[in-house]
């Protein structure tokens, strides 16, 4: 095929920053916004980390700390859960990584609506401030549990029922507004602003994961929005959307006739897709980490894309598996158990493809690779307990025990966090031009990885014994043996160690920013487009005078005869060692190495 001259591409009008304020504060540059999102998310995540430490202190050494009473304990549980799921994981994956990677990986100069993108991060900050304000109002933050189930969430007697719950609901509504503004950008940018030659199936899996997760978020968050508004009305003006007839402290309240189950349906119609809003970007990013650091194309690229899309679709029809103990019709439970188990098929397929990517590959045990492998193992462990809980008969006795806590922390807490760590070690050189410190990173990995197993593995046994979750104290509960209490102390010690080591990671990020080894362009020899910018780190506008042209997928590694063993996406095919036969060397059907 002869070379065809590139078509004229109309360039985006860029808002050029000239002052410090427009460059770093009210910036419309997607890279700056991504860093702003990430810093806010990590900062609020540290608050949630401290809260989990306080919870563990109480569980491991009950009664030793006077400032932790039943009310504050429940407030810690609630705020820890909500912050981690929404304000850290969702915001960091989509607002942080989504913002940074989508335009760079698609070959665009910026998001298509830069102004709205800027609004998104500031509205997000507003939602975080509102949430944090609830620590300082009378009564403190809400202690309703992160699921905020009515009626108890808004009744007197639940901690924070005066102001905390109102601030929580308002903060969630504001967050959803922020997310919608960002999300519209991510999806429209992927659809509209890809550079020439970047077909959908040439996009790196990171972009696919973030893209589909954003669509899930855009369609699922309205459920939280509606239920948030309805509960706010119940609390503030006394409607009875969710509130049944209630006698509280001997007095009948004005509420009547509402349905708490209705809230549960709305909440989980959001809540289950939320799991995949967190998981799909992790799936996508980990695929790219494995491929780059094992110098091998991702195994079954098309299957990986389809699996992401299918998982996204299925995630909307499994929500009621969170409600098996709500007294639902058994046929209803049967239906949701079936869909839940079906979703394991595309998920398992992805796990096989990750492991097959590593098969006979040239694995480099770099930091991102360590975290990526840690993710696979942890995700499989957490996923398998999900198969237990997905079955109604197994779930009923295990419901509301520590088994559930262990399951979801493994599968949607630790596993995505390992990917976030791996991704930060991987892309930090692109963002700052410097490498993170290797020794600190290795220490961080091993303590985090082994430590989380020390925390969550024993928790499964606690669940089997029947130790309930969300309890402040197990004193006087006879069926809980002394050994379980000892185990709790051990878990607490492990949790505190893991918590402290995260501070080392933060320190590493700050230290390396000033003193880290200079990375130079493309230190990992990655083929995808974000590493092919004229400058590292990329400057405003990303690409210099001309947008890059894309000639291949993002996984041409171990190409025989190629310089540095790989071909970047913007390298024309006619350039790889001069013959098309060589190109076939990168195809999955060909032998590797």
């Amino acid at each position: 095929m002869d070379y065809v001259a590139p078509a004229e591409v109309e360039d985006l009008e860029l808002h050029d920053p000239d002052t410090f304020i427009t460059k770093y504060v009210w910036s419309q540059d997607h890279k700056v916004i991504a860093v702003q999102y990430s810093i806010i998310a990590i900062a609020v995540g540290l608050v949630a980390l401290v809260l989990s430490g306080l919870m563990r202190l109480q569980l491991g050494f009950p009664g030793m700390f006077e400032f932790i009473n039943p009310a504050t304990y429940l407030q810690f549980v609630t705020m820890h859960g909500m912050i981690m799921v929404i304000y850290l994981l969702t915001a960091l994956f989509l607002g942080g990584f989504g913002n940074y990677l989508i335009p760079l990986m698609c070959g665009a100069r910026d998001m298509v609506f830069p102004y709205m993108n800027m609004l998104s991060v500031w509205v997000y900050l507003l939602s975080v401030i509102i949430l944090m304000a609830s620590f300082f109002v009378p009564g403190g933050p809400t202690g309703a549990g992160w699921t905020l189930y009515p009626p108890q969430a808004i009744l007197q007697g639940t901690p924070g029922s005066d102001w905390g719950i109102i601030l929580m609901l308002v903060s969630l509504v504001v967050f959803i507004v922020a997310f919608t503004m960002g999300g519209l950008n991510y999806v429209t940018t992927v659809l509209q602003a890809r550079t020439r030659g970047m077909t959908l199936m040439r996009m790196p899996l990171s972009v696919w994961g973030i893209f589909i997760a954003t669509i899930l978020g855009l369609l699922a968050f309205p459920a939280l929005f509606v239920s948030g508004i309805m509960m706010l009305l119940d609390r503030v003006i006394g409607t009875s959307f969710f509130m049944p007839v209630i006698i509280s402290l001997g007095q009948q309240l004005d509420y009547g006739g509402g349905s708490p189950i209705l809230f549960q349906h709305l909440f989980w119609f959001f809540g289950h897709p939320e799991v995949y809003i967190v998981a799909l970007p992790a799936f996508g990013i980990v695929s790219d980490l494995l491929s780059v650091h094992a110098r091998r194309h991702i195994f079954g690229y098309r299957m990986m894309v389809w699996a992401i899309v299918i998982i996204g679709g299925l995630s909307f029809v499994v929500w009621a598996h969170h409600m098996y103990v709500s007294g639902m019709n058994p046929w209803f439970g049967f239906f949701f158990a079936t869909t839940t188990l079906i979703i394991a098929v595309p998920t398992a397929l992805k796990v096989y493809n990750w492991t097959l990517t590593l098969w006979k590959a040239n694995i480099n045990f770099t930091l991102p690779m360590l975290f990526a492998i840690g993710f696979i193992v942890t995700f499989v462990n957490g996923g398998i307990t999900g198969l237990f809980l997905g079955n109604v008969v197994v779930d009923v006795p295990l419901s509301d025990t520590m088994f559930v806590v262990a399951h979801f922390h493994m599968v949607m807490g630790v596993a995505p966090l390992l990917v976030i760590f791996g991704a930060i070690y991987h892309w930090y050189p692109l963002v700052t031009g410097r490498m993170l410190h290797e020794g600190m990173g290795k220490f961080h990995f091993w303590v985090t990885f082994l430590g989380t197993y020390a925390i969550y593995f024993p928790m499964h046994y606690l669940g089997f014994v029947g130790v309930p979750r969300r309890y402040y104290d197990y004193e006087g509960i006879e069926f809980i043996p002394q050994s379980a209490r000892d185990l709790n102390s051990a878990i607490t010690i492990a949790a505190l160690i893991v918590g402290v080591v995260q501070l080392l990671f933060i320190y590493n990020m700050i230290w390396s920013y000033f003193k880290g080894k200079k990375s130079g362009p493309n230190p990992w020899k990655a083929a995808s487009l974000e590493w092919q910018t004229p400058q590292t780190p990329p400057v405003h506008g990303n690409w210099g005078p001309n947008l890059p042209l894309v000639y291949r997928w993002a996984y041409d590694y171990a190409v025989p005869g190629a310089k540095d063993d790989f071909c970047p996406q913007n390298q024309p095919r006619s350039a790889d060692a001069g013959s098309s036969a060589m190109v076939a060397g990168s195809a999955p059907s060909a032998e590797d190495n």
Partner: protein
Amino acid sequence: MGIVKKLTAKSWSAENSASDDQHLSAISPHSSKIGLRLFLAIVTSLFFLVVAAYKMRMDLADWVPMPEPDLLWYNTVILIASSLAMEWARRAARRGQAQTVKLGMMIGGLLAITFLVGQLVAWQEMANLGFYASSNPANSFFYMITGIHGLHILGGVIAWTRSMARIGRGDDEDKIKLGVDLCATYWHFLLLVWLVMFALMIST
């Protein structure tokens, strides 16, 4: 190229790479139109969930159907007229008739504001009759649905003032055309949402 063909492309092989190299993501329609359609999908999801909640809550024992004030019918007619005026402006914009565009946009926007005022008066009437938001779930839904819908109209009015400012300044013709087009699409959509919500409320 169809979506199935796109998603089954073997991007690793050299087979179709020559044609793929020429691939450009769509320049037309304009990104703003895609963004608006996406936003409408989100709003659809929102109101779909409201309808689902309405249906579930309706089946419970304490539901007392609420009388709809006649004013709502007049408001509906006003909103339809508003949408028609927007469509008139959109078609005029396509033909390049600047004066008609201005007139149509002006009428459309003012009618939408009239609708909002009308909805507030309807709230007042309901409250005067003793149908407060907290007295019955049917009333609660009435206030919530009209409230959320009204806020969306209000958002439209804000976008409309920006488009009007653009027309007033005599901005670039293509930009004006795009603004009018987006307004008209949004207006039609919110009319549709209102008709569905209104039908839901009067049928129960």
